[in-house]
């Protein structure tokens, strides 16, 4: 019996030793962010499919357990991957009108790799979460290629289906844009220049909800689901900007 317990303990050992360490120690931009601080691991929950057949659009959710961390305020969130041409996915700064961290977007993954998130709290702690994703060759489906079509920069936003003053309001926003990475070639072998949606600003009655910066690894037709703090009402304004200089605005009122 004792022997078996020892054996189990030995199996668990590697994870114990590694507590606090993770891919953020190997990725330069993440190391620069963290500086000397060690992030707390396991507080930030990342939700990704374990296996995906379509690396061109993988749904990524980042959240905090609301019951255990109801008083943790996240000021900034940084999303990275370990195996794409560039490690950055997106960065978010949250303002006073932002709800608790519960965010969803779609990303591009080049191959099987790790995705991780770093979050800075209002009291200057760092939180981290990490997940492995396996990407296989695309199945039967041929990937639809995004182009600068008629709906280019068409921005849409939808508010909560049922407004409740005691709950954060769920907002879903999407904009049509091919998110051309700059890594692709056209049929003639010419490099297609990079053209991406660079940022999104969201405010409620003039008060900041979030400021997002996107990198080329955000999937075509960028999508974001986020929350506005409970009890807040009024006009929500979204402003998207892309690298070609175009701008798009949309707004809804809550409730």
């Amino acid at each position, binding site marked *: 019996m004792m022997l078996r317990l020892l054996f189990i303990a030995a199996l668990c050992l590697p994870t114990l030793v590694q507590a606090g360490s993770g891919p953020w120690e190997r990725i330069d931009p993440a190391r620069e962010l963290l500086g000397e601080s060690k992030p707390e691991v396991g507080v930030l929950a990342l939700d990704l499919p*374990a*296996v995906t057949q379509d690396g061109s659009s993988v749904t990524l959710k980042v959240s905090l357990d609301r019951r255990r961390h109801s008083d943790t305020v996240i000021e900034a969130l940084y999303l990275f991957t370990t195996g794409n041409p560039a490690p950055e996915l997106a960065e978010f700064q949250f303002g006073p009108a932002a709800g608790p961290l519960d965010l969803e977007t779609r990303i591009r993954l080049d191959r099987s790799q790790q995705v991780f998130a770093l979050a800075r709290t209002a009291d200057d702690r760092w939180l981290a979460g990490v997940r492995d994703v396996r990407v*296989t060759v695309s*199945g*039967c*489906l*041929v990937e639809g290629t995004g182009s600068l079509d008629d709906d280019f920069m068409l921005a849409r936003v*939808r508010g909560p289906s049922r407004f409740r003053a005691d709950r954060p309001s769920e907002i879903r926003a999407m904009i049509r844009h091919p998110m051309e990475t700059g890594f692709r070639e056209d049929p003639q072998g010419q490099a297609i220049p990079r053209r991406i949606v660079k940022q999104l600003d969201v405010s409620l009655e003039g008060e900041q909800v979030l400021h997002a910066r996107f990198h080329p690894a955000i999937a075509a037709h960028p999508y974001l689901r986020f929350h506005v703090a409970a009890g807040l009402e009024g006009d929500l304004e979204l402003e998207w900007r892309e690298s070609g200089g175009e701008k798009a605005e949309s707004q809804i009122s809550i409730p």
Partner: protein
Amino acid sequence: MSAQAMVMWGGLALGVVFGVLAQATAFCLTGGLREWWSKGQMRRIGGFALALAVAILATQILAVAGLVEPARSLYLQASFSWLLVPLGGVLFGYGMMLARGCGARALVLLGEGNLRSLVVLLCLGIAAHAAMGGVLAPVRVAVAEATTISFGTPPGLAEWLSSVGLAETLARLIPALLLGGLLILIALRIADFHRARAELIAVAAIGLVIAGGWFLTGHLAADDFDPAPLQSLSFVAPVGDAIQYLMLATGMRVDFGVAVVAGVLAGAFLAALLRGRLELRGFEKPGQLVRAMLGGVLMGVGGVLALGCSIGQGLSGLSTLALSSFLAAAGILLGARLTVHGPIKLAD
């Protein structure tokens, strides 16, 4: 209910209905072809033809009503491999005759307690994933890239007719009525259905289940912010996905195909239970095991190359009037025919 939950529960419900109907009518392309070619009995092949006719008519009516957009489906994508689609059909057709039933039939038989089908399904699912993203995938992708054919308009009968100037309603209804009507006439003539009106209704309802799949994924659960693929029933990749789900459930979500697979199994079990047809069956001779395994592997690989199986291309695909589906269906029939005729025919 979220769009994803709706796809899941709707897929499960459609699967249960399909499972019950397919169990009650012994719905099977393989069995139909075998009885036709060896005994001259055409009742079951007539049933398949009738289901196909209803699927085509109902799907095209949904498209005319603007409720679904078939061009968004896998079958009408702008480019496919002119080699792999028919070749995959041939492999699939040969495999389904070897295994004495396609993937959908194997699920129904498993629901009845036939454990031979479990071997077929495991081989089919694993082979399908090997061809989609596993060891065979690099070869598949390389051959597919070398043999791709691209079209300006989605390659389908209705799309072509409307691109030469026919109004969309007519472009859909004319081929649907001609093809569907012809199939219904043939089915009613050859299948001798007057003695079994219930069977007639049941196989027609299978055609409606196909259209139900399009309606569910294309209209009911359509979500602007989460564009899920437009799909209907198919039993190659989803069988592999279901096996994968059993192993990786904590990191996966149930999609339409997996829900349908689970539903068919449950529906067939229920129907067999109520009709007193539950019986455990196994292999009697090692040769049967080899046939089941080889048939399963051929169906898995062939079904992925052909973008679908006897249901996926033979009913769902054909209901969109897509060129790739006609090619795949012709391949499936040819492959099946090769098992009774020619140099690689099977000893019975």
